[in-house]
């Protein structure tokens, strides 16, 4: 039997659903992602969302939340809430405040520690996220380069959900974002933790883009298209 046999794939699942019965499976290893749990011979769902499957054997539940569960490798938008001698304390909407070591910057030494006031917005990478520990962040990519990480100046940070953030980052690109991008010039940074930052030369553009994206979350694909057309007309 093939691993993708679960009839729930790409369907909505709720906690308690049994998606696979291991006893029916031939000897095969499964990789379970977030929201799934093995209970004896069955694989159970722990949170509501869409069940996703990736060949050959990965299963996970994708859901949209306001809060973010940190996981290593994610790119997030964080807000500095305090400065300690060793770490910046950064809010990433997770269950615990994340630590950004003061030396985790490209070429960071004791001598050139950046000065961040409270409320500074940062684009950072989650380096480690273990239970029972505060997640650790970094402003460098894996090669120790600054890449795109660091301070985001000006612009405005909008709150969204993790689902919307994922949609914005997905390919093919989010239709609203793509449509707006063709008409207007603006910068956008999306954190997978349900935050996105927009900057443009005009405040009105920022507001328009931000609100359009926020609004698009509750619309279906067709509605999004209609909404986008209307919006683009109103700009002209």
């Amino acid at each position, binding site marked *: 039997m093939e691993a993708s046999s679960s009839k729930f794939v790409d369907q909505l699942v709720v906690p308690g659903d049994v998606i696979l019965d291991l006893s029916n499976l031939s000897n095969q290893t499964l990789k379970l992602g977030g929201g799934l749990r093995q209970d004896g011979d069955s694989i159970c769902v722990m949170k509501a969302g869409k069940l996703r499957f990736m060949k050959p054997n990965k299963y996970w539940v994708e859901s949209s939340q306001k809060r973010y569960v940190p996981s290593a490798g994610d790119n997030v938008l964080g807000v500095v809430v305090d400065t300690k001698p060793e770490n910046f304390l950064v809010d990433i909407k997770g269950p615990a405040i994340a630590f950004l070591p003061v030396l985790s910057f490209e070429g960071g030494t004791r001598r050139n520690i950046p000065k961040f006031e409270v409320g500074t917005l940062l684009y950072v990478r989650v380096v480690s996220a273990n239970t029972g520990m505060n997640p650790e962040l970094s402003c460098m990519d894996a090669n120790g380069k600054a890449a795109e990480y660091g301070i985001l100046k000006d612009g405005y940070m909008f709150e969204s959900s993790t689902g919307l953030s994922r949609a914005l980052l997905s390919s093919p690109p989010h239709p609203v974002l793509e449509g707006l991008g063709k008409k207007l010039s603006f910068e956008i940074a999306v954190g997978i933790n349900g935050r996105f930052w927009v900057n443009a030369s005009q*405040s009105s553009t*920022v*507001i328009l883009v931000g609100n359009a994206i926020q609004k698009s979350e509750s619309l279906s694909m067709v509605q999004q298209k209609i909404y986008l057309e209307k919006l683009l007309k109103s700009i002209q």
Partner: protein
Amino acid sequence: MEQRLANSFTVTVNETKFIENALISDIRVDGRRPFDYRNLIIRFGSEDGSSEVQLGRTQVIAFVTGQLVQPYRDRPNEGTFAIYTEFSPMADPSFEPGRPGDSAIELGRIVDRGLRESRAVDTESLCVIAGKLVWSIRIDLHIIDNGGNLVDAANISALAALSTFRRPECTVEGEDGQELIIHPPDVREPLPLIIHHFPVAVTFGFIGKENIVVIDPTHHEEAVMGGSLTVTLNTNGDVCAIQKAGGDGVLQSVIMQCLRIASVKAGDITSKIKNAVESYNTQRSLRKIKRHNPSSTVSNVAKHHA
């Protein structure tokens, strides 16, 4: 410490700067102009005297109840009137359970001052037996969701609930005039309160170094603003209460400008409340007629009183 940091809400530097800069070009983050009010929705509960107000993302529930009590000794023929506020911790992570915080008390005082000290509700008509029994009206304001500008929402909610509240009719009988009969609502139609005028609160925020004025600030704007001004006024052009509790200073001319803008907004809001109340009342009387249809005699009474 960390606990507090996690619960409190930090406004980013970007947001602070952006809100200020956008205001210079006359636009706000939610797309409003500085003097646009957010969308106001007034709903009523199934019972008389309860209302639910939604102002943008702010939600407030008001519930009015009446009770017969002994009057205060210095005011023997006036009913009493009290406002209680409840800031549910569910509305905002910064609201703590237990004792009401400073902002809860301030909100209660502003609404109280606007409604009570301007004598919006006729308390003398609430007297049943002078010196012995009066109606005590209590308004409970529950903040359900904090999206900014709680004062205005609470005030509107209180007004809406007061205008739909009805108390059972009481008559005094007996030889000595001391015997009290409370008529059940299905015998005699309960009486609404006498409301002289509608004191509507309108709040302004002052943002940035130049103290740019915005009406009806959102939660984000509240976190950024240097001061606020709440003006309570009615459609007759009377100022009923003002609260500007410290914060950034503004010129007197700005205050007067705010008053004039507020009086226009108060007119809009009053008519919105009145329309909502009216449609509630029509629905209510329709419901009454339906309910009492089987027995024709009672329905006559109800019609007579309605």
